């Protein structure tokens, strides 16, 4: 029982961060119907940004302050990717946008491996831990989960309370109609792609505070993001956070009852089954 609680707590805390990463993926899909296959490398870039901004060999800034810089960089980077690789293929068949974002993936990984190698990096950073009875919660993970919730709340406020946020929702609902209403759709699309990558890079930065990473490390979180997005409904950011919690909880509970190596099997089978039975996701589609 103690093991179950400890394991569940660990899983749920991570679930928030996974959910944050998945929100980025699902937001982009919701707005422009593009699955961003460069999602994983962008998460990895967030990790490296954290490493260079606040690592011992980098500038040594406090990691949580560094997140602000990472967010800005992530936003700018996303806007660049949008104009280079996404804008031209928005109206082409799905294959085109899948392949063009995947080509961005290959370029990031290719340049990244050449420069950064695949030796794992660590951000040596600790803010202690809290013990609640049998459960030991690592400070870094707890703070990461809180930040993930905070960012999700900010995103919600942005989408529902600000002009550009409303524009994003309008374009997501019906691009043609939004354009007729005078909403600058190109800027709005670029902004939403940027916000999507921003969320991914923040998630990467947070993960870097407690796990080691290489440029290839994003792949695992990209696959998790797919699972989460499908759990929560493609295009539904709040669903993604819930999906993250479900996945985190599953990763926490399942190992108590079975060998851990079976957990990914369950995850992926669940993923395919949900796609098959209810492609709009357990929580229903965002649109």
């Amino acid at each position, binding site marked *: 029982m103690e093991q179950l609680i400890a394991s569940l707590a660990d899983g749920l805390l991570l679930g928030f961060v996974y959910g944050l990463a998945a929100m980025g993926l699902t937001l982009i899909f919701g707005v422009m119907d593009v699955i961003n296959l460069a999602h994983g490398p962008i998460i990895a870039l967030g990790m490296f940004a954290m490493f260079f901004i606040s690592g011992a060999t980098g500038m040594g800034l406090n990691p949580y302050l560094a997140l602000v810089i990472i967010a800005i960089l992530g936003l700018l980077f996303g806007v660049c990717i949008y104009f280079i690789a996404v804008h031209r293929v928005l109206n082409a068949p799905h294959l085109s946008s899948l392949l063009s974002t995947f080509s961005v993936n290959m370029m990031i990984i290719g340049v990244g491996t050449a420069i950064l190698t695949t030796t794992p990096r660590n951000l040596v950073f600790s803010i202690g831990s809290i013990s609640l009875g049998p459960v030991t919660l690592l400070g870094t993970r707890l703070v990461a989960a809180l930040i993930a919730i905070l960012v999700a709340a900010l995103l919600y406020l942005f989408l529902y309370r600000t002009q550009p946020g409303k524009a994003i929702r309008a374009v997501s609902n019906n691009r043609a109609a939004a354009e007729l209403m005078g909403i600058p759709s190109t800027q709005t699309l670029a902004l939403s792609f940027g916000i999507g990558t921003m969320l991914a890079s923040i998630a990467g930065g947070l993960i870097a505070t407690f796990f080691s990473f290489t440029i290839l490390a994003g792949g695992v979180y990209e696959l998790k993001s797919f699972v989460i997005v499908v759990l929560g409904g493609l295009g539904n950011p709040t669903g993604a956070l819930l999906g993250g919690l479900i996945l985190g909880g599953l990763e*926490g509970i399942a190992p108590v009852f079975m060998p*851990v190596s079976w957990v990914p099997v369950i995850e992926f089978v669940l993923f395919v089954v949900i796609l098959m039975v209810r492609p709009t996701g357990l929580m229903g589609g965002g649109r």
Partner: protein
Amino acid sequence: MKRLSLFVMLLALIFTAVQCGGSAPAPAAPAQEEAKEEAAAPAQEEAAPAEEAAAEPEVASEEPAAEEAMTGEETVVTIGYTASKTGSQEVPSRGQTHGLELWLDQINQNGITLADGTVVKFQAVTYDDESAKERVQSLYTTLVEQDGANFLISPYSSGLTDAAAVIAETYGTTMITTGAASDDTYKKGLTLVYQLYTPASRYLTGAIDLLASLNPDAKKIAFVYENAKFSTDVVSAAQEYAESKGYEVVLSEGYDSEATDFAPFINKIAAAEPDAVMGGGHFNDGSTFARQLHEKETSVEFLALLVAPPELDFAELGDAALGVVGPSQWEPQANYTQEAADAAGVEWYGPTVADFVSAYQDKYGEEPGYHAAGGFASGLVLQQAIEAAGSVDPDAVRAALDGTNIMTFYGNVQFNTTPEAHGLQEAHEMVYVQWQKDADGNLVKQVVWPVEGQSAEPIYPLAQIP
């Protein structure tokens, strides 16, 4: 008519494209390690070097060490291998290549002088296998057929070596393997493949012996290992050994190769309360595992992990590295010496440990790890066999390899010669390192097992209990 000619032209065009594509790896690819002009020399193939005396000298005169050519004719032996210059195995493969290149440098200063006065020199041909299986067989075929490799060295990792071994057997070319520990490769009827590494089945057994010597009361062991070929082989053999020694295996779990979160395993370990934790897989996962065990303040009295601890980078973990034990094929502190060889009644061969370490440091500016030692030893063992055979004839060298029983800076080397497991390494033993603190509080790697090789007393139990 017009259409037909167009068709023919197009055909020709695409055919040329195909040809360009195919021929690219052949002439352009070989990264000749040695002087190019040597490639012109016909690689020595047959046992009768004396008969070819007339043909050889002018080639020899182009050699850097030309004086030797006066005394006897010279023959150049080509060694072929692929290295993982890109991809996931890049780092360990580089060490292996460095070791082999150092050996080439040293041997080519004087060459081997055979009894009949022939001087044998070596050149190496190598390609990049990209750490992936697809091209390995194609590259090894090119090595044997086009580059005329007389002997082969394995790629890094067991999976790629399996693929390369098929080619070695097909063309009857002897291959010395290093960086390929899996037992299975040598148990499937191969006759020309010789293993330098201690096989996977003996990787962790020493750690169990070490545990027994430290704490005879220890009863429970937990195994947490990477769910991949090498580590699974190691752990299943270790598990069997542990059970035969009366230990209880309280946990045996594999994790995915890309795993970064070890919390579920650590929670299970906490629940199972073992006396020792063993496992790991490769560097990334092993070091993460050690770090998270430390962060979670898990009470573990004995921790032995594969591959990661012998790497110098492991020290970056700081306190989390303290006390972690790891099996290593070789360490610079190893005390393989002439005296040890005499005591054991086997022949001593090659440079001393200190000579190898300093030569390596001079050339590459870093301390050699065991991959590098394995790379150097693969050349050294071949050299020894050629000397013992007194010829470069493949069959004679093979017979000499079968009879090899030596101690080198790298340790003992002797191959299994039964048909069931031909080429399996019999004599070489693992050493076990432990990260300890020196007087200044710096982390240093010490050899703690076997007892004869100890450079420091092992720390036990680990003081990770808060």
